[in-house]
């Protein structure tokens, strides 16, 4: 097909139409290219997303694990709480085992074993035994834990005192607490029965506050204040 001869003006007019059409097509190509690049970026972002999800889920799971486990450990960690569970005393009974000479273990049942049995036989209805904060702090000291006790552990000691050989209960320089308590209670020449009574009184004094304790000590020949000085 041959075009009719076109004058320059008309040719120029049609050329502007052609140029406009070309630019339109080029722009369409470029816009399609932009859409492609945008889609590619989105695809790459979606590919990366699973890694983020795994990381976030992992962190969340570990935090959840920490939060669920931590409350179970709290009673063991919190020594300064005013209400101490009986488990602390069981920990102290380990110190008794350490202080007991190994030669005596064959002849008589160990103090620690008996103490452990006695503590397990405590009435469950009472629930966890509580004690004042000052006594709880004393219990955390390993060397004195055998003697420096809550009322219940003093009773345990009194119950088992008769079975313990004299060389264990004898005051020594490395067991100053034993020495102090014994000196206070005067058990060296007294019977087991009187010791029980005195220990019960001592335990009662421990359970009282400092004010009541002072009043009691004025009317008593025993002086549990020495124990408080520990």
């Amino acid at each position: 097909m041959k075009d009719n001869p076109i004058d320059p003006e008309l040719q120029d007019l049609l050329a502007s139409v052609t140029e406009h059409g070309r630019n339109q097509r080029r722009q369409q190509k470029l816009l399609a290219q932009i859409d492609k690049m945008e889609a590619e970026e989105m695809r790459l972002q979606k590919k990366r997303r699973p890694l983020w999800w795994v990381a976030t889920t992992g962190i969340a799971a570990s935090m959840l694990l920490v939060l669920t486990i931590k409350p179970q450990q709290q009673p063991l960690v919190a020594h300064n709480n005013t209400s101490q569970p009986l488990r602390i005393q069981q920990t102290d009974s380990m110190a008794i085992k350490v202080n007991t000479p190994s030669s005596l273990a064959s002849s008589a049942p160990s103090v620690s074993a008996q103490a452990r049995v006695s503590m397990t036989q405590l009435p469950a209805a009472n629930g966890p035994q509580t004690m004042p904060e000052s006594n709880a702090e004393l219990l955390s000291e390993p060397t004195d834990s055998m003697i420096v006790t809550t009322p219940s552990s003093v009773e345990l000691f009194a119950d088992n005192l008769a079975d313990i050989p004299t060389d264990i209960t004898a005051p020594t320089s490395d067991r100053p607490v034993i020495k102090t308590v014994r000196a206070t209670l005067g058990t060296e020449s007294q019977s087991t029965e009187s010791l029980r009574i005195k220990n019960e009184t001592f335990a009662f004094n421990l359970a009282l506050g400092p004010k009541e304790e002072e009043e009691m000590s004025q009317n008593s020949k025993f002086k549990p204040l020495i124990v408080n000085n520990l």
Partner: protein
Amino acid sequence: MTSEVFKKMIVTYQPDMQRMAESVLHDPYLSEDAVQEAMIQLWQQRNRLDSERNLRALCVTMAKRRSIDLLRKQRPFQLIDEEALEIPEPTPNNIEERYQKAMKIIERLPSIQQKALLMKYEEEKNTEEITRELNISSTNLYTILSRAYAALREMMKNEK
């Protein structure tokens, strides 16, 4: 810069970029490649374009650099005086004005003549495509175009 804003920017400055590329490469198809590469580079840097004051200069400069790169690939042993390649003036509005003027005249033509002219000159379709789409013979198309030229010529004379 969002994708939509970027698209608007490209549509606005594409004619200038194309002119710059054609002035360096003297080839419309290579120029299109250069503009496309420049556009990709701009897309990768689009987060920094918001703070750019003169977007047109940036776009045209980018097209110029890509055109020179393409020219160096084609003619590795030819020296290119980059300083001589000045950024052209903004695309003259008279192209758009002329297009609008032409369209005003073309719109006065009968519908079949309008379609045939636009398909031939704006869409740059060949005779076979036009005859197939308009469902006419090539002789018919020749006649339609001849009449359209004559009518346009007459209208332009009358406007003068």
